[in-house]
């Protein structure tokens, strides 16, 4: 049986209560809006770049503990990554939270591995991936609002 403690791990709760980089970047290189039509949650992501390296990621929006924590920890994880590294991390994260993660995927995640318990809660996977989908849109210049659907 899935255990709630696997979902709501300490680190997740801590980030949900005090999300990092929860702000607007004044002159971002790119930004994107994400929307989860299932719950009405919205998320704005701002990125600044230093050459082709991600300098800073920030976010705003309303959402559940999972989506806030995921966005918060994502902003930390992406700092200093190249576009290519960010794409790889997104794929690994996506694979792990949807229960398809290989050992290689898991080894990529670092602290983000606390989200692996979400694969036991399929209804909540989209909460964890909203910010990531949004950052992908921002990095790849997709101006349309992205949705999790």
């Amino acid at each position, binding site marked *: 049986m899935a255990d*709630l403690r696997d979902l709501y791990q300490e680190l997740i709760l801590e980030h949900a209560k005090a999300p990092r980089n929860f702000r607007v970047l004044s002159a971002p290189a790119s930004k994107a809006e994400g929307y989860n039509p299932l719950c*009405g949650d919205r998320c704005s992501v701002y990125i600044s770049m230093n050459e082709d390296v991600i300098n800073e990621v920030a976010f705003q929006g309303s959402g*559940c503990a*999972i989506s806030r924590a995921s966005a918060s920890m994502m902003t930390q994880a992406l700092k200093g990554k190249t576009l290519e590294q960010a794409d790889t991390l997104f794929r690994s994260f996506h694979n792990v939270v949807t229960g398809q993660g290989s050992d290689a995927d898991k080894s990529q995640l670092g602290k983000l591995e606390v989200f692996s318990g979400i694969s036991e*809660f399929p209804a909540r996977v989209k909460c964890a991936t909203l910010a990531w989908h949004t950052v992908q849109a921002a990095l790849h210049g997709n101006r349309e609002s992205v949705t999790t659907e």
Partner: protein
Amino acid sequence: MSANAQLQRRPDESALWASQKAFDVERVRADFPILNERVHGRALVYLDNAATTQKPEAVIEAINHYYRHDNANIHRGVHLLSQRATDAYESARAAVQRFLNAQSSSEIVFVRGATEAINLVAQTYGRSHIVSGDEVLITAMEHHSNIVPWQILCEEKGAKLRVAPVNDRGELLLEKLEELLSSRTKIVSIAHVSNALGTVNPIRQIVRLAHSRGIPVIVDGAQAAPHLPIDVQDLDCDFYAFSGHKIYGPTGIGVLYGKAELLEEMPPFQGGGDMISSVTFEKTIYNKVPHKFEAGTPDISGVIGLGAAIAYIDNLGKASIAEHEDELLSYATAQLEKIPGIRLVGTAREKVGALSFVMEGVHPHDIGTILDQEGIAVRTGHHCAQPIMDRFGIPATVRASFGLYNTKAEIDSLAAGIEKVKEILV
């Protein structure tokens, strides 16, 4: 008005009420096989009845019986099975007529659900009566299914959608609604009961206000039909829509009631078999109502299941059901108000069926997941009514909604579940 208040004004219903045996919820629960399910190792506490209700054995068995013994197409064959299927289908129509107290069974059109019923009216009555500059009036508490069909119509015709506001309790501001009625208003479409808040709207008064200006009224009864006695002649509404699956019947079947004279003059919704009386390549003569609006082979088993659901409700007595559910709602309101950090959303004086709430510092989705682990099914989100969420400045709520098989013990489980949420997240 509450279900009870409405009943007290109607002697026939009160007499019926008096003749009912005491409502025995444990016996009722035994009629619903799914209530024996265990969820995450716990007894199921199903409090998502506003989304869909569970089905009694009688409904499941009626559908089973139809497919095992009577399955044939209706209104066509000369053979015995076709006759049986047609009889079962049409007697369900008569059951719906009695359920709504419609004047004639020809005023009952079978559709897929309340959504399709509203779309049908928008696309037929609406398209043939609305022109550029006209207005359609709805309220701030409508479900998306009573917003979007009108937006589509208004966009096509260059008409305007107007919205009557609600107060902080989630009650319709009747005087504002009256101010919005003008010579440009061609349709008023309004929920009988709000799905997100549980507010009961004063339909009779609204119909009087609209009719005094010659404006027809469509009532979205999806959330009222399970809880309130419905009398379309008493309400004097022009159209009334509801869904079978919210009154313990199957999914995929619903009803549009329309006054005969309106249905007669409306153009058809879809073309096909059964809705015609003769077809040549030059000209088609449409069938009489309600068949004009039932193109193609309908959901025959769904209609039969709906008929069984109405028989089940009739047998328990709608008044007894309403009394039981009112008691549950009052009890749940009192229990939840006691919990610090919980705020009820929608505190109308006249409410039925549903209780929406938010918890300080905790998103509804997290509450929903934790309650689910306790075996408790609630709805979390915007309840397909985003504008009313915006009105209250929240993205979502938790909604507990009650059916005839719910118990006070289940509400105690909900309260205990909320304490568990606090333990984990606050």
